[in-house]
């Protein structure tokens, strides 16, 4: 991992299109501003990891969904519109 030291309001460029700026530091928290192209997803890493774990679990779905369909039909409570 590349480690750089930056002061408040200083920034880092990643490639030609991404800029990360330190906006402020208070206590143990750092506020970071990120400028990136719209099609570059920017997310908190723990959120991405939670979705990766959920995908992993979901990918082990059973072959036969018939029982699932019946279970859903019997117990599904969609929200009222």
């Amino acid at each position, binding site marked *: 991992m590349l480690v750089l030291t930056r002061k408040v309001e200083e920034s880092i460029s990643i490639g030609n299109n991404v800029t990360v700026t330190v906006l402020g530091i208070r206590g143990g928290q750092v506020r970071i501003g990120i400028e990136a192209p719209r099609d570059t*997803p920017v997310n908190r890493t723990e959120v991405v990891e939670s979705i990766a774990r959920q995908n992993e679990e*979901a*990918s082990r779905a059973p072959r036969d969904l018939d029982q*699932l369909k019946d279970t859903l039909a019997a117990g599904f409570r969609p*929200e009222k519109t």
Partner: protein
Amino acid sequence: MIHIQTTRFGEIELEENRLILFPEGMIGFPQMKNYVLLEHKPGSPFMWLQSAEAPDLAFVLINPHLIRSDYPRQIPLHGGSPTAGEDDREPLVFAIVTIPPGEPGKMTANLLGPVVIDAGTRTGKQVILADSGFDTRHQLIQE
């Protein structure tokens, strides 16, 4: 025609234009980029997103608007904010269903990370609805 090997459905034969490219793969599965959408059964709320490359990789999908009427209907494939309006040209939106082994009554839907598919260009992407308040384990059946 293309032939796809699957562990759940055996070998399936499809028109080549049924392939959907996920340029970045699914989150956690960046290597697998080609999928096909398969119907479960007529009248079923479920669909399958089957990998064309990994026979055992498939996801169960459901229309999230069946679960939450206020779920966003327009989720741009290439950034921008999700909105509630309807537009026929907008990409299709699906939630991935997780089925705990032996406990189908505890199935959940991932509303935080929907799958968005542009039927026109046949490309797809898993999008994260950051700060939306939706979660990865929304119970489908209320106890």
